[in-house]
Structures are given as C-alpha cells and as structure tokens.
C-alpha cells in the first residue's frame, strides 16, 4: 500500500508540470517538426543490396535514392526521375548487336540498353567514410570507438555514375548475398560471369573489376545492358537495389573490428536521400534526421483530380523535405500504439480490427467514414486498396485436390464458391478489403472493373454488383466431383482436407473456426495444421502441403509481377521458384512469356484477360481479397497520400508541431482523485488496527 506514496513521489520526480505525465517523449522542442512513428521488429540489414523486406524499406527508402521513383500523387503509378535527370533512354539490339530502329517486332530483340543520366551536384550525406584517414584506422583507434557518431571528422562528395555501377557490382558479388542476384543473372549481361570472377576476391576489389553489361559512359552517365526485352526492368531501377553506393563505404566498413562494434553498412547506411540515419538503436529507437546536403527537390504541382480538394497541392513547389526529424520507437504491441495515437503521441496509425468499430463506421451507402468521437478529435481517414493479393492456394501436385483432372477442378471450384470471403472480410477485416476477382489487384494494368472484371465461375452479376454463387451450386459441383454431400467414396466418411497455417495466437482460433465452418458447408472436414514458419516453408518446398493461404505484395506495378506466381517454370518443387502451388499450364505459360515482354498496350490487356480466364477456370487459387488500407491521421499531419510502391512519401509530409502540442495538452490531463481516494481508504483500514493494538497493550489478566 506504500505504493500509493511511491507513485506520487515518482510523479513529482518525473515531471514538474503535471499536464502530460503520460508523455512518452523527452524531446520537448516545439519549433522542430518531429514525426513520431514506430517499428515493430528490429531491421536486420539496412543495406540496399540485401534488404528485401517492407519494414526495412520504410527506412531505406528515405536514405537511399535510386535513379527513379513513383510519382507521389499520380495514379496509376508512374515512374519519374529521382536522382536521374530524365527517364532512361532505351535502345534495342538484335542478336548481331545491331541497333534496331524504326518499328520492329519484339522477338527480334536480343539485347536492350538502358542509358541513365543523373543530375549533377548531388551530394552524399555527411559520413566519416569520405575522410581518407578514416578508411585506414589503426586497430587501437578502432578499439576506442563505440558508435559511428564518435567520428569527429565527416565528409561528403558529389554523386557520380560510378557509384550506381558500383552498387550493381555489389549486387553481383556473392559475398554480399543479394536476394535478387540469382534473378538479375538472367537479365543483366555479364552479371553471372562477374560474380564468378569476384567470388574469391576481396570486397573492395570489385571496384577495379569490370562488369561487362554495366558501364560508365561519363561522369554523370552510365548504361545497363540486359538480355532480350524486359520492360519491367525500369521498375527495378526504382528499387533501392539500384541506389548508388560509394566505393568508400565498402573500404571503410570492411576494416577489421568495426563489425564487432555493430558499425557496418547494415546499421549505418550512406545515402543521398532526404534523410540520414542519425541514431540506430534497434533495441529502442531509430532516428532519421533531415539531410543538410539533400539536393533540390520540390513538392509536385500536379496530381489526381481529387488531390486538389483534398488539399494535397497546398505545398506545391516548396522545397522538400518539410520534416526535420523522424523518431521511430520500438512498439511491439498494437494496443499501446493505438492508445498513444489517440493521446496524440503518434501522428498516424493504422486501425487494428479491434479498434475498428471505435474509429470507423459505414454510412448507409456502405462507404466508410469516421465515428463522431474521431471526428471530434480532428482525426482524418485515408483509405486505399493495396497492390497485393491474399489467396488460398491448392497444391496442384496433391493427389486429391490438385491435378488437371476435371473432378479435382470441380472440387476446387466448389471450395472457392463455398469460401465466403465477403463474410471473411467483414468479420476479420471489418470490411477493409475487396474480394478478388482474379490475380490482379486494382490500379495494376490489365485489371478490369465491374462486370468485365468478374470471376464468372464464382460470382453472378446481380443488381449491379458481384454476388457469390449459391451454396447449392457448390454442392452440385461436389457431387459432380464425386463427393456427394462431401462424402469421400473411398472412406465413406466426410472428405478430409488439410490446411497448413502459421497463424498462432489470439485471433487465430476464431479464424480457423471460420475456415472449418466454410468447408463444413459442403461437407468437407478441414483439418488445420498450425506449424511454425519453417515447417510451413518446408511443406511448400517439398510440395507436401495441401491447402494454404498466402499473400503477395507487388514489387512493382506490373501484371507480370503477379502472373509469374503461376508461371510453370517458376514451380516451387521443381524449380525452387515462387509458384507455390506448382501450377502448370502450357497455354498459360506461353501467354505469360508473350505478355511479359510487352509494353502496356491494348493487345497486352487482351492477353492478360485470357490468362485471367485460364486461371479462373483451373482454380489453382481461391482468389481471396485485396486488402484495403485504412489509415488515420491527426489534424496536424499534412500531405498524406498512401502509396504502395517504394515508400518515399516521408519527404512530402508536413507536421504542424505547435497545434500538436496544444492538442496533447488538452487530451492528456492526468486524473488524480482515485489516488487520493486509495490513500484515504488505506488510512481508514489502518485505524482499527491501531485501536486493536492500544487495546491489547492495556490488557490485564482480570
């Protein structure tokens, strides 16, 4: 009970003003505009050559700048120069290495060359690596170091084409272990040979070793030569993998002993971006600070129609970035994050399905809007459909559910009708998502809206909307498939199917029950096999799984990036590719190869429709849903437009720190009376005790 005192005592200690006792931050500098965000898992590597996870990307994208980026406001996504002067000049050559000109058929093309010219005068962020001396430290100098900030001397230099080439060489270097190395080998000329060559060389030696396909043309110009025609390559050029990397970095970081001090490229990047990594403490917080050397870039002046009334063009033409500092705090749990957001200590937040009803309601017309309480707090809602798909995959190698046989197909189809994803979305995602009609999410070229885009095998078009086919239809399909009312003729029992999942924890049980119920509708007994991620992957690899759910996040906004998940030669089991269901259909594959190398033309769209049709017919997937992202923003948070490609938005955002300060004050008034009450209660309890003591000491025998 002394605790009560303790609390009060500490409160007095912890802060002189009792207004924001619960303010988790110690930085109190109102005239700096600091953005507060969070990260849930420590980023493992912040090296643009190796990092391939969205969580790491949210940092990298601010620090490194590849030649191109996606326009912040325009939709559908389109490329625009970032550190490059203009979009790449692409020349095509035939097998004899002759430049093709005029109009020629695609199959002639043997090589294509991308010539990229970069802006002049771009400078790297300040970094000790640019000081000659720092690259040749003595061992005892290194001993003294504890962190990167210990270096007093920091330097910079201008960005040159060489740096881009150097990075591509790093991609090829086996010691770097770039996840896309294997992939790029197929395309960039001389890539494979190069990696063979430098296999046993030291890291720094790649500088002097030439990579035939990638060459510097001038100080500000370089060229990449790739095999055949591969239009998607330009998208790769907008990914961090192709961001410039100064050779000094390697020479600096490879010094012995720095690694033990956690001073490595993985933890302290060297970029040209709008922000640089000031503090990297993955156990607690990561701080990005405005890069003083950042080159001139300005807020875009045109965007979508709606952007104007949304006020997204207010800052048009102003110099970027607006924010001085971004503080990411380690926040594992969703609950505290949400509460802190409501208290105004985070500026933006997603909505966990548990806090959804509190935040959002659907108007009679069915579109989402904020609840009164949220509106009173001046919070704003942004919704957008992400360029990703969550699907249920059937392992096509499985004897029961897989294969091209008609009854297996019917079975799959029956399931995909029975699985009521509309309900799933409304229960588990609070309607944040749209049921997928095919492989492609909206805003990706080739995806059709409304009736044209409907999956007619599963849906009907009724009063101007999709409507899932009736369960009777599914049952009928089951019968045709040979499982009358779900009974497996072999066993005489209900057909048993196995569902592998990695989801554990609180929400999982409900979800599993839901799946079971869905399959029960058509009399199938679903056995759920929860496993950890490794086992799951093993199953997928050796094709022993039967049913599983998985998702795919687009790397770049091109249909190819989705369809290749079903491309036969990408089969997981056979070719260790990304085709997890091991779907194999020659017609489809042939169409895919054709579509892949085309530009976005009407013809391409038609081919895509054919491919969609094939998939819908063969049902290797149950097209689950495309999640809809709901994001909440406080009133002081400006210029938000959700984007799912290369998250470079940070530099566009603006924060009104002063109004934030006021709101926090107003929202976080501590409540004291319960403590007082507890104290009083405690004393009341004590009184009789004291009496009892007095009484006893007065006791006599008679």
């Amino acid at each position, binding site marked *: 009970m002394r605790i009560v005192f303790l609390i009060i005592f500490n409160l007095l200690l912890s802060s002189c003003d009792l207004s924001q006792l619960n303010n988790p931050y110690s930085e109190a500098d109102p005239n700096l505009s600091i953005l507060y965000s969070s990260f849930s898992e420590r980023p493992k590597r912040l090296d643009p050559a190796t990092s391939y996870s969205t969580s790491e990307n949210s940092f990298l994208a601010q620090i490194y700048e590849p030649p191109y980026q996606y326009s912040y406001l325009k939709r559908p996504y389109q490329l625009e120069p970032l550190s490059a002067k203009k979009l790449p000049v692409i020349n095509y050559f035939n097998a004899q290495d002759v430049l093709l000109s005029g109009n020629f058929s695609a199959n002639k093309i043997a090589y294509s060359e991308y010539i990229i010219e970069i802006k002049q005068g771009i400078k790297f962020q300040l970094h000790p690596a640019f000081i000659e001396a720092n690259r040749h430290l003595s061992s005892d100098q290194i001993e003294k170091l504890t962190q990167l900030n210990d270096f007093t001397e920091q330097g910079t230099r201008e960005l040159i084409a060489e740096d881009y080439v150097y990075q591509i060489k790093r991609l090829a270097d086996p010691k770097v272990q770039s996840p896309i190395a294997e992939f790029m080998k197929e395309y960039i000329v001389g890539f494979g040979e190069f990696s063979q060559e430098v296999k046993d060389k030291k890291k720094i030696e790649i500088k002097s070793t030439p990579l035939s396909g990638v060459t510097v043309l001038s100080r500000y110009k370089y060229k990449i030569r790739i095999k055949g025609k591969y239009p998607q390559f330009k998208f790769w050029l907008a990914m961090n993998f192709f961001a410039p990397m100064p050779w000094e970095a390697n020479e600096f970081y490879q010094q012995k002993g720095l690694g033990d001090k956690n001073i490595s490229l993985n933890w302290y990047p060297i970029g040209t971006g709008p922000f640089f990594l000031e503090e990297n403490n993955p156990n607690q917080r990561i701080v990005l600070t405005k890069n003083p050397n950042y080159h001139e870039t300005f807020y875009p002046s045109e965007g979508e129609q709606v952007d104007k009334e949304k006020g997204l063009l207010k800052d048009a033409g102003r110099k970027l970035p607006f924010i001085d500092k971004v503080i990411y705090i380690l926040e594992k749990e969703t609950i505290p994050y949400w509460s802190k957001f409501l208290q105004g200590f985070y500026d933006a937040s997603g909505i966990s399905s548990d806090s959804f009803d509190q935040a959002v309601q659907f108007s009679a017309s069915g579109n989402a809007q904020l609840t009164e309480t949220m509106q009173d707090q001046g919070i704003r809602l942004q919704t957008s459909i992400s360029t990703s798909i969550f699907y249920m995959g059937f392992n096509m190698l499985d004897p029961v559910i897989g294969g091209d046989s008609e009854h297996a197909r019917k079975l799959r189809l029956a399931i995909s009708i029975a699985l009521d994803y509309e309900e799933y979305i409304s229960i588990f995602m609070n309607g944040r998502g749209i049921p997928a009609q095919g492989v492609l999410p909206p805003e990706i070229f080739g995806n059709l809206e409304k009736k044209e885009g409907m999956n007619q095998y599963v849906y009907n078009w009724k009063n101007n909307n999709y409507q899932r086919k009736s369960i009777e239809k599914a049952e009928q399909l089951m019968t045709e498939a040979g499982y009358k009312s779900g009974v497996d003729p072999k066993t005489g029992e209900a057909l048993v199917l196995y569902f592998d999942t990695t989801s554990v924890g609180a929400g999982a049980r409900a979800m599993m029950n*839901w799946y079971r119920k869905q399959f029960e509708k058509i*009399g199938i007994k679903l*056995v759920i*096999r929860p496993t950890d991620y490794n*086992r799951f992957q093993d199953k997928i690899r050796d094709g022993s799984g039967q049913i599983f759910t998985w998702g795919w996040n687009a790397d770049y906004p091109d249909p190819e990036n989705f369809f290749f998940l079903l491309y036969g030669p990408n089969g997981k089991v056979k070719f260790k590719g990304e085709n997890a269901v091991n779907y194999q259909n020659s017609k489809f594959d042939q169409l895919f190869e054709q579509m892949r190398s085309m530009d976005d033309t009407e013809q391409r769209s038609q081919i895509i429709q054919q491919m969609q049709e094939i998939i819908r017919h063969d049902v290797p997937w149950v097209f689950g849903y495309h999640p809809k992202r709901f994001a909440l923003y406080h009133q002081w948070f400006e210029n938000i437009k959700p984007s799912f490609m290369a998250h470079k938005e940070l530099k566009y955002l603006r924060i009104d720190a002063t109004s934030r300060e006021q709101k926090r004050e107003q929202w976080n008034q501590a409540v004291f009376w319960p403590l007082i009450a507890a104290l009083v209660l405690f004393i009341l309890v004590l009184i009789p005790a004291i009496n009892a003591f007095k009484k006893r000491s007065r006791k006599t025998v008679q």
Partner: protein
Amino acid sequence: MIILWTDTLIYLLVIAISLAIFFIGKQPQMRRPIKKIGASKTGMISLVVLIFFVIIGLLDSVHFKSTESRTHEIISLLDYWAKPLREQGEKTYSAPFSTQLYSKETMTADDGTTQWGYPRLKFGGAHLQNPEAEWKMDVFTKALIGFGKGAGLFALLFIFFWITLHKNHEHFFANPTSKAVWFVLFTLISKTYMLIDLSMYYHVFGTDKVGEDVFYQAIKSIRTGLVIGSLTTMIMLPLAIVFGIMAGFFRGWVDDVIQYIYTTLNSIPSVLLIAASILMVQVYMSNHAEDFNSLIVRSDMRLLFLCLILGVTSWTGLCRMLRAETLKLREMEYVQAAQALGVRRGAILIRHILPNVMHIVLISVVLDFSGLVLAEAVLSYINIGVDPTTYSWGNMINGARLEMARDPVVWWSLLASFIFMFSLVLAANLFADTVRNAFDPRRAD
C-alpha cells in the same frame, strides 16, 4: 466413445486419487489431519467448489463422435449438453444478456431499404418481441425460475441425504462446517441451474469476436486448467519422489548425479525449454500428420506435451525438498533400528522413508496446482502455451487484451475468464492452505 491421451491420464489420475484417499483413510495417524480438514470451514467449502469444477472437467473428458454434424466432430459429454451454447453463435461481439450486436451495421430490411444500427442477435433474446421494453423483466423472471428449479433440485438431494444418513451420521448436518457446506452446495446448484436456464435464452457472458458464447468458452477452459494443474503434478511426482529419496538415502555418487541433473535443469530458463519442446511437438505432428487428422486430437497432444515439459521443469523443487527430508530421516533412530535388524535397503525405503515424506509430497502437490493453472495463462500469452484452438483461460485473456483497447471496451470475456479462473485458483489455494495446516507436523497443534 473416443479416449484421448489426456483423457486416459485423467482417468488414471482419478483412479489413483481415489485409491490414495482409500489408503490414507485407513492410516490412523492420517486420520487426525483428515479430521482437521473436515473440521475447517474454508477447507471444506473450497473442496466442494473444487469438486464442482472437477465434475465439469470430467464431463468434458468423455469424448465421442457426434452424430448430428456431418463431419462427425469429436465432442465431449459437456459439449453434447451444452449444444445450444455451442451452436447458437452470433455474428460478432454482443454484451452479456444483450439482445443486439455490440457494433453498428448496415441492415437491409426485407423491403430492401438499408439502415445503420445495432442488429438484433440471432439467438440472444430472440424470443422477445420488443426487447427494449421486455428484456429486463424477462431476464429477471427467467433467472428466478432457474434459481427456483435449482433450489428444488437441491431440496430433493438434501432430503434424500437426510433420510439416508440422518440416523447414524448426525454430524453430517449438525456441526457448523457441514452447515456451511450444505449452504455452499445450495448456492452452487441453484446458481448453476439459473445460469443454465438463462443461457438457453441469452448469452450470459456475451459473445466474442466471432460471436461464440463466452460462457461456453469459460466452461470449456475449466478442463484445460485442471488438466494442466493435475497432469503436470502427476508427471513430475514420480521423478521428484524417486530421485529425491534416492539422492537423500544413498548419498555418494547417486546424490551427485541427481544433484547435477536438477541443477542443470534449474539453471536453464524454463521458457526456452518449454518453447523448444512445443516446437518439437509441432514438428512431430507435421511429420505424422495422418495420426492427427482431427483438430481436437492435435490440440490434445500439444496439451499433453505442455504438461510433460512443465512436469520436467517443475520436479526439481520438490526433489530438493524430499532429498533434504530423506537426509534427515535416514539418521532417524527407527531407520537405524531397521538397519540393525537387517532389513533390506529397499524395504527401508518403502516402509520407513516413503511414508514419512508423503505429507511433503501431498502439500507440494496442492500448492503447485494453482501455480500451474496461472502459469498456463502466461505461457499462452507468449504463444508457447496450449494450442490456440483449445479453449483456455490463457487464450481468452490473450484475446481480451486486444479487446481492452477498444472503445467502448469489450470487458466480458476478460471478466468471464477472471471469474472462473479466480474462483478455481482461490479454491485451490484455500484448500492447499488447509491441507498444509493439517499435514505439516510443525503446524500440528
């Protein structure tokens, strides 16, 4: 009739316990403590409550293939009787005794017009014409009726016992303790009946995210709690007793080895041990998928392993105690006398040492029980506890954590799990106290 792994163990346990009681009852110097327990009010009351829980747990441990659902799910006797609870699910959250969902939705009336509001529940209070006006009264009357039924049932029981026992067992009714016990029985039975009656028409503890009845979940969790509490001790007991006594009695290298083992085990953070072994089960099951083609079997297996590993991690404490006690006992004069009489070591162990450490074993068992029930919740929180598909208070709390962040707060599943868990653990603790006071020689007055 299907017997799961844990079921078999439970049955064994039940048999073992009843045997133990039988033998203990025969031993005169055991009678004194037992009398003492019988005399203590809190002890008996908590015992009654415990037994009540145990009965539910046992009902939930009799499994068979259900005939009604097409997929022939394995269900337990409890599930069978709680059919309405089990199947009358709603769409999503609904408050206790509520007649409508907890969150607004767009409802399309028959005439196609849509409106934004709280839809009526499919089952909860579905029998009411206009809830706003009636439901308070309805709930009240329903409760009364249920209570009445319960009271009636109790009365029958009581009269039956009175007639049969009153003649020669006066004390079953006379002394204050038994009065208290009868009273508790009365409240228990009538309240239970009341709840059952109500739950036919309402969701007594509301529904959870997918509209499953929370009351049902809480009841189902009882078995999990009991299993963890009891099986674990059952698994760890032999280890602890054998090793402890041997170490204490033979000393020398035996002692060294055993000490080595338990120090090593102790010094490993048990969380890791548990996590690793849970993973192992996962692996095993995914390798032998065909043997575990039913969800309940899988989760049962995992539960069993959890008990196993908990047992392995928790035997050391008791083992140490027993070792110390045995070291004392082996110097006792009657043990030496036995040696002088040329009694074999084995015989000495069984006849002289074992019986005289039993009170320690007993005490520690009852004490550990509650601790284990609590541990389950914590483990489930770190996702290394029971299978997420098994009903357990741990999982309920885990889910409730998220719900506490909602506004308006969804408090009922937390409350439900709290009430049930708390009453079980409290009862266990109180009973443990009584047992200890009764059997601990130092406390014997």
